C-alpha cells in the first residue's frame, strides 16, 4: 500500500464516522429556529417602490415587505423583528434553498419548475407583464414592438416568456438588452438606451410614478394576457412554516372580508362575533396547532393591518403609484382573493 492510499483510506474512515454522527440530529422547523433567533429573515428586492424598498430611514416599505412583517408578527409577536436581505432575480431561489432567508416575498411568480425547487405557499398578488414605452415613439400596442430595443432584467426573469410569446405570435424579433438588476434596466431605459422596458405590472406602475422624470411621457401596456401569480415561498419540507405562512396570509384576507382593521381590532376581539373572537385570541387551539401564541392573528392585524390596509398604504390611491387592485380585489368585488374557512 502506498502512502497516498493510506492517507486516503484514513480520510475516508474518518469521513464515514463523522457523517454518521451528523445525520443523527432531528429536523427542526424554521419556525422554532426563528423563535430562537428572535427575528425573521425575509427577502427584499433591489428597490421597487410600493413593493419593497428601504425608505430614507432605511426601513423597508412596500407590500411584499409588509407580508414579511405579518409573518414576523404571527411567529414572534413583533412585526419589526424582520431582517430584510436584498436579492436580485437570480439570487432569490438559491437564497431560500440555502437557508439565507426564511420567507421569500419578492414578486416571485409561482411556476412548476420553481415549485419543484422551493415550496410556494399562497399567491399574494396577481399581476401581469407590462411594457413601458415612450408616448412619443408611438408604440401603442405590442404588435409594434418588432425590431425595437427592450431593456430588461436577465437571469431567468419570467417576463421573458411574455416576450417570447409576443415574438412567436407576431413573427418578429426584438433586441433585448439584459441587466443583472431591474433597477439598472429601468435607469437605462429612462436614459434612452431602449425603446421599452418590460417588468411586472405593479412594478411598472410604481417605477413610472416614482422614478420617471416626467411620468406623463411614458405609457404602459400589457405584454400578453398571462397572469403572473406572485406568491410567498419557503424551503421545501417544512410543514410547520408552511402552515404559519399560509394561515397568516389568510388572516389578512379574512380580516378585510370581515371589516377588521388595525383601528378596530381591539374592539372586535372583545365585541365581535363568535368566530372573530375565537380567532383573535379567544380560542388558543388555532395558535397551539401551529406552535404559536393564542394572540398570533390579533398581533398580525394590530401591527400590520388587513390586506386592504397593506395595499392602500403601499400601492393605493393615497400613494404616488395609485395602482388598480384589479384581480387582487376580494371575490365579492370581482377579484380573485377570498378567505379560507377556519373550521
Amino acid at each position: 500500500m502506498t502512502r497516498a492510499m493510506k492517507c486516503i483510506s484514513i480520510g475516508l474512515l474518518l469521513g464515514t464516522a463523522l457523517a454518521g454522527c451528523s445525520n443523527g440530529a432531528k429536523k427542526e422547523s424554521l419556525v422554532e429556529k426563528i423563535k430562537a433567533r428572535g427575528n425573521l429573515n425575509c427577502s427584499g428586492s433591489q428597490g421597487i417602490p410600493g413593493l419593497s424598498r428601504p425608505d430614507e430611514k432605511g426601513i423597508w416599505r412596500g407590500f411584499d415587505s409588509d407580508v414579511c412583517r405579518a409573518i414576523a408578527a404571527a411567529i414572534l409577536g413583533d412585526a419589526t423583528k424582520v431582517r430584510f436581505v436584498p436579492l436580485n432575480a437570480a439570487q432569490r431561489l438559491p437564497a431560500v434553498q440555502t437557508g439565507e432567508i426564511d420567507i421569500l416575498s419578492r414578486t416571485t411568480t409561482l411556476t412548476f419548475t420553481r415549485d419543484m425547487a422551493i415550496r410556494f405557499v399562497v399567491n399574494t398578488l396577481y399581476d401581469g407583464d407590462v411594457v413601458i414605452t415612450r408616448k412619443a415613439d408611438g408604440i401603442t400596442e405590442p404588435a409594434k414592438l418588432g425590431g425595437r430595443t427592450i431593456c430588461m432584467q436577465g437571469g431567468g426573469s419570467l417576463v421573458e416568456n411574455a416576450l417570447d410569446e409576443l415574438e412567436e405570435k407576431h413573427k418578429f424579433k426584438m433586441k433585448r438588452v439584459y441587466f443583472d438588476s431591474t433597477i439598472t434596466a429601468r435607469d437605462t431605459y429612462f436614459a434612452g438606451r431602449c425603446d421599452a422596458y418590460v417588468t411586472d405590472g405593479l412594478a411598472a406602475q410604481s417605477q413610472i410614478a416614482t422614478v420617471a422624470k416626467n411620468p406623463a411621457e411614458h405609457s404602459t401596456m400589457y405584454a400578453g394576457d398571462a397572469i403572473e401569480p406572485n406568491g410567498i415561498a419557503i424551503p421545501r419540507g417544512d410543514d410547520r412554516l408552511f402552515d404559519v405562512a399560509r394561515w397568516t396570509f389568510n388572516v389578512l384576507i379574512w380580516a378585510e372580508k370581515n371589516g377588521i382593521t388595525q383601528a378596530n381590532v381591539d374592539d372586535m376581539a372583545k365585541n365581535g362575533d363568535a368566530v372573530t373572537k375565537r380567532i383573535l385570541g379567544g380560542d388558543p387551539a388555532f395558535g397551539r396547532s401551529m406552535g404559536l401564541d393564542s394572540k398570533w392573528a390579533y398581533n398580525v392585524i394590530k401591527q400590520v393591518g388587513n390586506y386592504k390596509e397593506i395595499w392602500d398604504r403601499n400601492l393605493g390611491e393615497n400613494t404616488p403609484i395609485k395602482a388598480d387592485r384589479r384581480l387582487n380585489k376580494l371575490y365579492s368585488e370581482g377579484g380573485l382573493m377570498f378567505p379560507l374557512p377556519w373550521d
Partner: protein
Amino acid sequence: MNRTQRNLAYQAAALLLVFGAVALVVATASANLADRGIELGTEFLGDRAGFTLSESWLPYSPEDSNLWAIAAGIVNTLVISLFVAFFATFIGTGLGILRLSENALAKSFARSWVEIARNSPPILLLLFLYSFLGQVLPVADVVEPIQGVYLSLRGLAIPALDLQGMGWSVTGGVLLTLIGIGSVAKATASRQRETGLCPPWVKWAIAASALLWLLIIVLLLAPSASVELPKANGPDIVGGFILSPEFFTLITGLTFYTSGFVAEIVRTGLQSVTRGQWEAAYALGLSRGRTLRLVVIPQMLRVIIPPMTSQYINIVKNSTLVIAIGYADFMVVTGTVINKTSHAIEGTVIIIAVYLAINLSLSALMNQVNRRVQQGVG
C-alpha cells in the same frame, strides 16, 4: 523517536487534520442537502434552456440545451478576454515605454494613465464609462459622422460585409496566410544566422499573398458578397454591424484597467536590462530599434512573462464584472441556468471548474512561452 520519525508523525497528523476537515465539510453539506430536499444531478444540462442571450458568438437559440447555453457563455467570456488581453498588451507596452521617455509630457501622461487605471476599482470604471456613454451619446436621433456609419446610444453601426456563408473560410484563409508569412520570416532569420545574408523572401511572400488575395476577392468574393448598410429608424439603428455600448464599455473599461498593470510590468522589464546592454549594442553599431528588438526585448521577456501570466488570468477573472452592464458572459449564463433550474450547487461547481480550466490552460500556455523565452536567450 528520531527526527525522521517525528517529522513523519507531524505530517501524518497534519494530513489527518486536513482530511478530517474535508470529511466534516462533505458530511455536513450532504446532511444539509438531504435536510433541505435538494437533489444533485446533471440531467438538467440536457434540458431546454428557454432563455435568450443578448449577445452570442456561437449560434444559440432558447431551444438549445442548458449545456449549449453555458458553452455560448464560455465563448463570450473568452472573446471578451481575448480582446482585452490583446488591446491591454498593446496599449500597456506603449505606455510602459512612454514611462521611460525623456519627454516630460509623454512621461507624465503615461504616469497619470497608469495611476488612474490601476488605482480604480474595475467595476467603478465600467459603471462610470457606461453612464458616461449614456450622457454623451445622442439619444433622440442618430448621427452620421461618416457616410454609412451611424452613432447613437443604441450603438455604433458600420456597414456589414455579407460573405454569403464564406465568412469562416475567409477567416481561415487569412490566418493561413499570416502563418505562411510568419514561417517564411522564420526561415529567413535562420538563413541569415547561417550565412550572414538576408534574402528578401518576406517581401516576396507578402507580394505573392497580396496577389493571391486580390484574385480571390475579384473572382470569388466580389460577385457573391454584398454590403449591408445600416439605416436610421428614429432613434434606432437597423442593419449593418452594430457595436453595442455594453460591449464597447467592457472592452474599453477592462482594457484601461489592465493596461495600467501591463505598463508597470513592461517598465520594470525594460529597467531590468542594464544600461551596459544598451551601450554594448550601440557600440556594435545597432540602431535603437534593433537594439530594442534584438538585445533588450528578449532579455525583458524573461522578466515580464510570469507577471504577465497573472495579468491575463486577472483579465479572465475580471471579465465576470460584465454582469453589471448586461453582457452575457459565462457567469451570467450559468447564473441564469441556476436560477431557472435551481441546481445551484452543480452550477457553482461548473463555474469553478470552468474558470479553473481556463486559467490553468492559460498558465500552462504561458509557461510554455516562458520556457521558450528562457532557452532562446540562454
